[in-house]
């Protein structure tokens, strides 16, 4: 941590949060919330949490602000004032907020100081992770090894949660029309309403780089910040860029609804399948060291490293499919006819 930067970034964050709440225009609120997310990423980088910052970078720049803009596009942009006679609700809310803040403030006095070496959180289990990760798994990035190996159950069920969220969005929003002939896209014909050649050209140049970079992030997560979640979100963001700069139909031609749900399933199944493979070989669920029996020329330590790579690939596939599915459903209000 660098306290000078810490203080300045925290000030900016509080200003941004206030402005996001106070501004009366929903599109502007979404945009200021994007700036808030940038500053959050800076804060976490500066506190040393590079993996968290990477996730926030890909999520905040690529997905969440675009989702807000899509939702505002599909609904209305204006905020109406509350009808008169309801000012009491505001006062009550303010009182409840102040009370909660007061309780937290009193409880906060018992907490260990900021950046204290002997805070209880960093005394019990984390020294084991820090000292043993190279010895156990040969993975220098502790966050990856804790995420995919030591706490593998947790991450598996988080992936299931994301998959469930994608299914919930489809269940809430999707409207099927009976006669909806799907016309395949013609990507090089400038359709009406999208006359912007420059944006299309630059997007066409950048999308392969973004996808290649996402694959690098997934594969190199053992040695540098990154991993399945970040790579999956970046892959999804590349498809969102394609859907915005080209046509909605272009993305549907590459990744239609059936493929999205299938890939989401496949990602979760890869994760659980590796776990069951370990179980079938005679070890515990998600104990990758037994995989050295089937993988050629690996000892028990390297087998754990390779097993982690396998589940990161599963996570990346699931997250990519779900992010694309959520975006396509929100931006077309479940009709899949035309997007932003």
């Amino acid at each position, binding site marked *: 941590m660098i306290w000078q*930067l810490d203080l*300045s970034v925290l000030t900016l964050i509080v200003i*941004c949060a206030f402005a996001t709440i106070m*501004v009366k225009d929903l599109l502007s609120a979404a945009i200021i919330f994007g700036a808030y997310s*940038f500053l959050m990423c*800076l804060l976490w*980088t500066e506190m040393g949490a590079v993996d968290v*910052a990477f996730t926030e970078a890909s999520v905040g720049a690529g997905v969440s602000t675009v989702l807000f803009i899509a939702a505002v596009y599909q609904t209305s942009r204006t905020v109406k004032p509350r009808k008169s006679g309801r000012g009491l609700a505001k006062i009550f809310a303010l009182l409840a907020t102040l009370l909660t803040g007061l309780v937290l403030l009193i409880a906060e006095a018992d907490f260990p100081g900021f950046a204290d070496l002997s805070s209880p959180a960093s005394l019990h289990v984390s020294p084991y992770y820090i000292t043993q990760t190279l010895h156990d798994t040969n993975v220098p990035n502790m966050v990856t090894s804790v995420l995919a190996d030591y706490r593998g159950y947790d991450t598996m069920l988080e992936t299931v949660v994301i998959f469930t969220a994608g299914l919930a969005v489809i269940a809430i929003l999707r409207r099927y029309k009976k006669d909806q002939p799907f016309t395949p896209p013609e990507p090089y014909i400038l359709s009406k309403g999208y006359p912007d050649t420059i944006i299309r050209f630059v997007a066409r140049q950048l999308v392969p780089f973004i996808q290649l970079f996402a694959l690098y992030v997934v594969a190199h997560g053992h040695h540098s910040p990154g991993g399945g979640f970040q790579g999956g979100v970046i892959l999804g963001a590349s498809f969102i*860029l394609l859907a*915005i700069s080209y046509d909605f139909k272009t993305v549907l031609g590459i990744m239609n609804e059936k493929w999205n749900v299938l890939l989401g399933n496949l990602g979760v199944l890869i994760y659980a399948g590796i776990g069951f493979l370990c179980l079938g070989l005679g070890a515990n669920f998600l104990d990758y060291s037994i995989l050295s029996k089937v993988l050629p020329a690996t000892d028990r330590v390297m087998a754990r490293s390779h097993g982690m790579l396998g589940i990161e690939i599963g996570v990346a596939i699931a997250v990519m499919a779900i992010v694309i599915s959520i975006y396509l459903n929100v931006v077309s209000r479940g009709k899949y006819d035309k997007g932003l």
Partner: protein
Amino acid sequence: MDSFFIGTGVALCLLMLLTLHRAIRGPTAIDRIMGLNVIGTKTTILLVIIGTIYHRVDMFVDIALAYALLNFIVAIAASRYFQHRKNLNPKGYGFRYRSEGEK
């Protein structure tokens, strides 16, 4: 040299604060998008600077690369919004409710 970079970072944060004024108060929504874009570029550079201060710049440069690649998606999405719905409302309504007669 570290303190020089810390000073540079704090100066960039100060400039970011001034840009944030435009992003928050800016009369129209597109002014806000412009402010967001400028803040994104400054964030990219600050990430590399923080990596330099930590002496582990090879770990931080990937995050900055992700920002450089993804930063303009929001701007393009917002411009698409204005191509479909042309209610920019140049007078702007920032922190007050729009009155009835106003377009």
